[in-house]
C-alpha cells in the first residue's frame, strides 16, 4: 500500500522536476526579452514592438509565479525534501524577485519614457547585456543546485564577475551623466534607469550568495 503511494510519488516527482525547470526557463527567457526590449527602446523609444516585449515579460512573470506557488505547495503538502525544502523555497522566491526587477524596469521605461541621449546608448546597452548575463549564470547555478551540486560554484563566480562589471559600467555611466550639461531633473531621471538595470545584477549576486550557502548545506 505504502509502496503504491511511493510509486505515485515518482510520477509526481517527475512533474515537479519539470515545473522547476519551466520556472528557470521563464526566468532565463525573460532576461533575453528584457535585453531585447531595452535595445528596442534605445533605438526607437516606446514603440508598439516595445510594448509587445513588455507584455511578454508580464506573461512570463505571471507564469513563473504560478509555477513557483505550485512547486511550493506540493513540496509542503507532500512533505518532500524535508531537509532542503526551506532552501528551495527561498531560492525560488529570490529568483522570482529577479524576474520582478526585469518587469519593473520595463514598466518604468513604458510609463516614464525617459529621454536617453544617444551618447549614452552604448553604455546602457552594455549594462543591460552584462546584467542579463549575470542572471543567465544564476539560472545555470540554480539548475546545478538541483542536479549537480558540485557544478554550482562553476557558475557562481561568473555571477560575481558580471556584478562587478555592471558596477563599473554603471559608475562610469553615472559619472558621465552628472558631468554633462543636462538639467538636474533629467540627470536624476537617467540615473534612476541606470540603477533599475544595475539592480538586476546586484540582486542576482545577492541570490547567488544565498545559493552558495544552500549548496554548502547540501554537501555537508
Amino acid at each position, binding site marked *: 500500500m505504502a*509502496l503504491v503511494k*511511493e510509486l505515485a*510519488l*515518482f510520477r509526481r516527482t517527475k512533474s515537479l522536476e519539470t515545473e522547476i525547470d519551466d520556472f528557470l526557463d521563464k526566468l532565463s527567457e525573460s532576461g533575453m526579452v528584457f535585453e531585447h526590449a531595452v535595445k528596442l527602446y534605445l533605438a526607437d523609444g516606446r514603440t508598439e514592438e516595445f510594448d509587445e516585449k513588455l507584455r511578454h515579460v508580464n506573461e512570463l512573470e505571471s507564469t513563473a509565479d504560478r509555477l513557483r506557488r505550485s512547486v511550493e505547495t506540493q513540496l509542503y503538502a507532500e512533505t518532500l525534501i524535508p531537509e532542503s525544502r526551506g532552501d528551495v523555497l527561498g531560492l525560488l522566491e529570490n529568483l522570482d524577485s529577479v524576474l520582478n526587477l526585469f518587469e519593473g524596469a520595463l514598466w518604468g521605461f513604458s510609463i516614464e519614457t525617459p529621454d536617453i541621449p544617444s551618447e549614452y546608448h552604448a553604455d546602457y546597452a552594455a549594462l543591460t547585456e552584462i546584467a542579463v548575463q549575470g542572471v543567465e549564470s544564476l539560472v545555470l547555478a540554480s539548475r546545478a*543546485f*538541483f542536479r549537480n551540486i558540485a557544478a554550482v560554484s562553476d557558475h557562481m563566480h561568473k555571477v560575481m564577475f558580471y556584478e562587478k562589471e555592471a558596477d563599473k559600467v554603471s559608475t562610469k555611466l553615472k559619472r558621465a551623466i552628472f558631468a554633462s550639461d543636462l538639467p538636474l531633473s533629467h540627470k536624476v531621471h537617467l540615473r534612476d534607469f541606470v540603477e533599475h538595470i544595475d539592480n538586476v545584477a546586484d540582486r542576482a549576486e545577492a541570490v547567488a550568495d544565498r545559493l552558495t550557502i544552500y549548496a554548502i548545506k547540501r554537501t555537508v
Partner: protein
Amino acid sequence: MDIAVLLFLTSGLFLGWALGGNDAANVFGTAVGTQMIRFTTAAVICSVFVVLGAVISGAGPAETLGRLGSVNALAGSFMAAFSAALAVYVMTKFGLPVSTTQAIIGGILGWNLFSETVTDTNALIKIVSTWVLCPLLAAGFAMVLFKMVTAYLRASRLHLLRTDAYTRLGLILAGALGAYSLGANNIANVVGVFVASSPFSDFSIFGLATFTATQQLFLIGGLAIAVGVLTYSKRVMLTVGSGLMPLSPVAAWVVVVAHSLVLLLFASEGLERMLAANGLPTIPLVPVSSAGAVVGAVLGIAILKGGRGIRWNMLGSIGMGWVLTPLLAGLVCFIGLFFLQNVFDQTVYRPVPYVLSEPVLERLERAGVKTDRLGELRGQTFSSARRFRQALGERGALNGDDEAKLMAYAEVDPMAIDPARLADLETSRLSAGQVQAVRGLSGRTFTHTWMLAEALARESGEWRPREKSTENKAYNKRLRKTLDFIFRTFRVAE
C-alpha cells in the same frame, strides 16, 4: 489451554511490547526523525514485517538462547521475561536506549543462578562478544555504504527531488528489511525462553506445511512486538532520529541498511549453511542488540565526517545502559524467583539432578574421558549442576573439555516412549525410517537423553549422526533439531 500458561506468557508479551516500543525506533527512527516517512506509514510497515520475520526466520537465534539456559519451568520463564521487560522499562524511564537482548540474557543468568544451573560459558562468551563485534561491524558497513552512496549520487547527477524520492523508497524497503531482521533476530528475546516449555503443539496446515509449536509461539510474540510499535514507538523514534547526531536522509538510509545487514548476518541460517558449504568460518547465530547496530552505524558515519556533531554524553549514557541492563534484569529475576517460589509456591525450575551411574561412566570411557580419578564420586547422585561441579572441582579430577562432556552425559533427563504419546506423534518432519525406529522403542524408558539418542541410532541408520565435517554440519544440525523435538515430546514431566 491452561489459564496459568496464558498468565505466564503475558510477561513475554509485555517484553515484546517493550521491545516493539524501543527497537522499532532503530529501524524507522531515522526515517521518521528526518520527516522522510510518516509515523503511521512506518509503524504499519514495521509491524507487518516484524511478524513475518519472527515466524519465518525466527528459529536460528532462539536455539543459542535455549542452550544458554534451558529455563525448564513456565514460572521461571515468566520471571526471566518479566525481569527483562522491567529492566527495559526502567532504562527507558531514564531516557537510556536499551538493548532487550542484554536484558533477557541478564534475566536468564539470574535464573541460572537461582536454579543452580551451570551457565554455558561458551554460549555466554559467544553472545557477549557479539555485543562488541556488532557495533564495530555496523560502523564498518555504514562507512563503506556511505562512501559508495555519496559517490554514486555525485556521479549520477540525479535531480534533488528524484534523490529524495529514491531515498524515501529506499528507507521504506530498508525499513521493511530491518523490521524483518528485527523480528527474526529478537523474537528469541521475547519468547525464546518459553521454547523449552511451550504450551503449543505442532500442527499441519492441510498437510502442506507444518506450523510448529515454536512458530506459533513466535507469531504471538511477533504480534506483541507489533502492538508495541503501533502504540509506543513514536516518541522514541523521534528521539533516535536526531538523538546521537543530526543525520541527512541519505545517511539515515545508510544507517538503517547497515543495521539490517548486521542483524540479518547474525540471524541467517541460510548464510551459515552457505559459509559452511564453502568451508568458511561461520558467524554465530545469536540474538544481537539492534540498538548496538544502529549506534555503531551512526558513529561510523560520524567518523567519516571527522567526528563532529557526536553527542558524547549521550554515547556515555548508552554505554552505561548496556552494562546496567543485564545486571538489573539478573537481580530482579533472582529476587522475583525467590518470591515466586517461596511466597506464591510456584515451581520456578525443574531440578536437574546429575548421576554418575555405571552406564554414564561406561559412556564416558567410550568418549575417551578417564573416569578412574573420580573415586568415591562414582555412583553418587547430585541435586543440581552447581553441586555436581563443586564436587568435581574439589577433586580437581578433569579438565574443562572433559568436564563439559561429563556434565552432558550425567545430566538426568528422564524420557519415556509412552505408547499414548507415540500415537499422537507428529510425524511430518520425520522420515519413515525414523518413525519406525521411534515406534520400535515403544514402552521403554531412558534416564538420559543420550541413551534415547543411542537407542534410536541402533534402531535405524537415519538416526545416526554423520562424521564431523563442514559438509555434514548442516545434516547433523538438522538431526540434532529433530532429536530435540523427540526429547520434547517424550520428556517425563515431574
